[in-house]
């Protein structure tokens, strides 16, 4: 059986773009876990709510074939910002109203609260747009959606497709990742976040308002999830109250795979999961006829189990003794 390079590259492209979206969501899990050691199981639903908000915002405009391109760009950016702010504010509010009260409670309490919140938010999602999969308002015309940039722009004679949406994903994700890395690494607030994550009491002794710092971590995670949600809605051309479950689960897996609490790890894990996802959905089938998308969760969690067995801290997780 011959190796089909075209097919491989095609699913690699899809995998990387999908992986970037997962990475944005995974960062929200890892930011929060790093600082309060809580798996925020409601995070997938915070992502979903961002998509629904963007859906509603875009639905308020009438977009047709005559709408000028700059209006489309403006509406897209507005919806992106709205989704980010909505998810950010929602995640912040969840911490303020629920988790903060449980900060000194046994660990199981916030975890169960998170699962409960996730069901509540799904219920709100059903109330908001119904229980069916919806197609988001047609922001990107179908003929633009299906352009192959490699043919049209670069004049390459190839069957590998690089769509404008792939570029949009990269164009939105990379600046966000660079910004986050600058924020956490260089700003005073970012350093306070890292200090709080490493030793909460010592951080308080430095004059750091720990509750405020934790709230900022939730806000940041929400902002990234909102951005990912808006883009994912158009990337998959679907909005539904269920969309948070799959992306949330895969993103959580990505965060654990990369080493939960480690920001670079979340990105690496996200890309890896995205690639495994796409390869399993399409590429593997060319060689194993009975393989298909129904096996994708098996592949993803199989990779997770393998990594956990050989590197329990995750790919980039490190065991630094916190207390000497």
């Amino acid at each position, binding site marked *: 059986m011959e190796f089909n390079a075209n097919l491989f590259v095609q699913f690699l492209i899809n995998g990387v773009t999908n992986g970037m979206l997962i990475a944005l969501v995974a960062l929200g899990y890892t930011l929060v876990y790093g600082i309060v050691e809580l798996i925020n199981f409601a995070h997938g639903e915070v992502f979903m709510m961002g998509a629904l908000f963007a859906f509603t915002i875009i639905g308020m405009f009438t977009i047709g074939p005559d709408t000028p391109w700059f209006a489309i760009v403006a509406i897209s950016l507005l919806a992106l910002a709205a989704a980010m702010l909505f998810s950010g504010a929602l995640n912040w509010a969840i911490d303020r109203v629920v988790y903060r009260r449980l900060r000194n409670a046994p660990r199981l309490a916030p975890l169960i609260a998170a699962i409960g919140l996730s069901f509540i938010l799904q219920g709100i999602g059903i109330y908001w747009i119904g229980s069916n999969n919806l197609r988001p308002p047609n922001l990107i015309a179908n003929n633009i959606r299906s352009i192959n940039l490699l043919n049209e722009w670069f004049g390459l004679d190839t069957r590998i497709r690089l769509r404008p949406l792939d570029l949009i994903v990269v164009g939105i994700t990379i600046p966000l990742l660079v910004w986050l890395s600058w924020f956490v690494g260089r700003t005073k607030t970012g350093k306070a976040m890292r200090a709080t994550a490493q030793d909460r009491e010592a951080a308080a*002794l430095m004059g750091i308002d720990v509750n405020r710092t934790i709230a900022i971590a939730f806000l940041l995670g929400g902002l990234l999830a909102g951005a990912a949600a808006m883009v994912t809605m158009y990337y998959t051309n679907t909005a539904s109250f269920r969309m948070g479950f799959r992306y949330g689960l895969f993103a959580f897996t990505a965060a654990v795979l990369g080493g939960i609490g480690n920001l670079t790890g979340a990105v690496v894990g996200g890309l890896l999961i995205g690639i495994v996802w796409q390869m399993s959905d399409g590429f593997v089938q060319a060689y194993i006829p009975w393989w298909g998308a129904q096996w994708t969760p098996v592949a993803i969690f199989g990779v997770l189990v393998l990594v956990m067995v050989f590197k329990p801290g995750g790919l980039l997780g490190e065991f630094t003794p916190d207390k000497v």
Partner: protein
Amino acid sequence: MPMLEIRDLNTFYGHIHALKGISLDVDQGEIVTLIGSNGAGKSTTLKTISGLLSPRSGTIVLDGKQIGGVPAFKVAGMGVAQSPEGRRIFPRMTVLENLEMGAFVRDRPEPGDLERVFTLFPRLKERIGQKAGTMSGGEQQMLAIGRALMARPTLLLLDEPSMGLSPILVETIFGIIRDINAQGTTVLLVEQNALMALAIANRGYVIQTGRIVLADDAQALMQNDMVRKAYLGEE
């Protein structure tokens, strides 16, 4: 009026009555030491002052302001810096970042502050880019004290700075504490190493199972029979 005035302080850990009516004073410019054995309540006293613990009753007055029960991050903003027990440096941050965190309460850290810390602890300057968790215990202790100094505190709380250090290093650290005090910082020092602590302190308090049992000048405490037997290891 003393800089720090504590009256009838009672602090609980859950149901455990850890501080049973502690009263003590620290005057401007002094080194005051609180000595006692393991579990006597020394660290609890410091944690209650710095706001990590809330007292059940009693008052802590700093420069005329009642700070009992005020959260730690606000107390830090009032000029109190603590070098905590077990050092508690940020292990995955560099030495420089740790020192920057020490200056968190200040709007604009001045280069002079870093210079001052590096003059007191030249070793830290050599390790400036190293992750703090990879340093030796002695270096981490220097970092913990240096980090506290970055806040330019008016009152410096030191919790067991000698713990786990070699005798030579203990001498060095205590010499530096005296220098810090000579530069105008008031120090409240908690120690199990009573001999060293009393040697540099103006006054001392002896704490036993949550109560102050003795208070006197450091020189007088060194001559006290009970202190000599219990804490200086003499027969």
